[in-house]
């Protein structure tokens, strides 16, 4: 089993320390709020990469799992008064189960078909959320979630810790033998089957984990926003995450996570551009796609490490 190499570990811990120091420098809820949102995006992008980056099966409906986790936690809290802490524990179980269920019929699809199937699955989920308004609150969503005990800074530390541990765990998985098998499946599934590898079991299990982490992030996000709204199930969110993973470098886990962190911060920073915000975002994306081969973050980091050595 491979572990992280030294430079990666040191830099990761340094980044963690930096993020942990933020609440000591400011108690501004706005700043903490942006960072919490960015960390959630990092969890979502990293979890997306766990399946789609390693096996090359692009999931265009990741928001389904995010929304499922968020709504699970929100529903337990608003309908049954169950503390958010439990919601955060239950959410990944719900999403993970959904991941396995949806993976069963869809993971055997090739090429663009898997992408379209997942896109449609999340569109169906979004529509059902609006149709079943009695349970989900319809277009208004479930609001009035009772926050966890403690201040915004305390919650920030919780999110930061869970985020860091999750991404580290996913990276460990990617580096492990199981991760290698998944990459092999991504390259040539037929040969893997011929080598008596239970390809389906690997894919479905990984999809379940990918979905579970996404749901965990969703519940954390709902706990910050104190609302679960249908826009967490939108195809816009799914596509945003795919873009972040692409910019980060698919298959590296940390690349998408870091890219997500930065892109979430950049979009918030672009508030200054007023109504031009999304246009600038689209142009940046166009440039990155045109000029880079394997995304931006991962190649950049490798280059940097090469220079430092």
């Amino acid at each position: 089993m491979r572990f992280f190499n030294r430079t990666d570990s040191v830099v990761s811990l340094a980044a963690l320390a930096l993020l942990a120091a933020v609440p000591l420098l400011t108690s501004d809820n706005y700043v903490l709020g942006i960072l919490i949102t960015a960390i959630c995006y990092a969890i979502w992008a990293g979890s997306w990469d766990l399946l789609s980056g390693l096996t090359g099966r692009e999931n265009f409906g990741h928001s389904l799992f995010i929304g499922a986790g968020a709504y699970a936690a929100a529903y337990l809290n608003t309908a049954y008064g169950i503390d958010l802490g439990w919601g955060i524990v239950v959410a990944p179980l719900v999403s993970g189960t959904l991941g396995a269920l949806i993976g069963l019929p869809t993971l055997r699809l090739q090429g663009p078909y898997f992408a379209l199937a997942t896109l449609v699955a999340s569109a169906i989920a979004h529509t059902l959320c609006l149709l079943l308004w009695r349970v989900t609150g319809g277009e208004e969503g479930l609001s009035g979630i009772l926050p966890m005990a403690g201040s915004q800074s305390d919650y920030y530390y919780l999110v930061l810790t869970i985020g860091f541990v999750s991404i580290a765990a996913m990276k460990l998985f990617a580096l492990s033998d199981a991760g290698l098998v998944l990459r092999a499946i991504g390259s040539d599934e037929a040969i893997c089957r011929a080598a008596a590898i239970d390809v389906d079991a690997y894919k479905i299990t990984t999809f379940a984990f990918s979905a579970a982490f996404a749901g965990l992030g969703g519940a954390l996000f709902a706990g910050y926003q104190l609302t679960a709204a249908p826009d967490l199930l939108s195809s816009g969110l799914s596509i945003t995450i795919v873009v972040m993973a692409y910019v980060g470098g698919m298959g590296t886990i940390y690349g998408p996570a870091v890219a997500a962190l930065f892109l979430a911060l950049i979009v918030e920073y672009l508030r200054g551009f007023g109504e031009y915000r999304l246009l600038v975002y689209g142009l940046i994306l166009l440039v990155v796609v045109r000029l880079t081969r394997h995304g931006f973050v991962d190649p950049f980091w490798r280059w940097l490490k090469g220079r430092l050595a």
Partner: protein
Amino acid sequence: MAEILLYGAASSASYALMAVGFTLVFGVARVLNLAHGAFYACGAYAMYGFCAAFGAAPAIAVLAAIAVLAAVGAIVNRFFVEPLRARPMAVLMSTLALSIVAEQTLLITFGSQSRNIPLILDGPVSLLGVRIGAQGLLLIAVAIVVIGALWLFLHKAKLGKAIYATSQDPVGAQLVGIRTSTVFAVVFAVSAAMAALSAAIVGPMQTVSPEMGLMPMIKAFSVVIVGGLGSIGGSIAAALLLGYSETIVSYLVSTEWAQIVSLVAVFVTLVVRPSGLFGK
């Protein structure tokens, strides 16, 4: 039930026009063009521009919009698809980024408010005892003529046959001297032109707004998957299937459930028979 017959036909016609262009690009150039919705929206706004700025008659504005979008299609292929051909994911991202930029540009230029483009044929008409807008009948007629013409082109005309050959085997086509780059440009141009045509005829009966391309594109996806990626015959069959299913559900159940029909149809197709009705 003459009503279901006519209303369903109108729905199917608009879906068919969007889907055929999309499946053409996939079948021939192997590109999942996420900017197809942007072609649709830009087509409608182009027509709006010609009517509002130059006071053009609706029919002329439609032709002008088609011409403009055909050029746009070729340009998109040349600068945003061709250079990235080796990496399908990059092409997908590129078309996606383009659609974001297009929608935002339309939003900033024209504002979020809906616009209106004029009908070529105004007024209700009574056919088979059914009250239907005259433009709806025009849509059905245009769809039949245009798709029919496209089919003839692909099977009889020299360039058309070259396109058809490329879709079967790109390498083989090149070996017999077909310029695939020209083929791809033409296919993108035709696809964009058909999207613009659809928008120009359907738009007056609906509305023109910057995000108007999203739903038609998702419908086009649904039709193309159910029909089979790359099959024009499949797209036509699936367009009829989905268009009529929605109309029938609207009548017999409720308009509330009509839109989910195509989504469910897609999911079922992918799970049961991913290659669709007539796919390879």
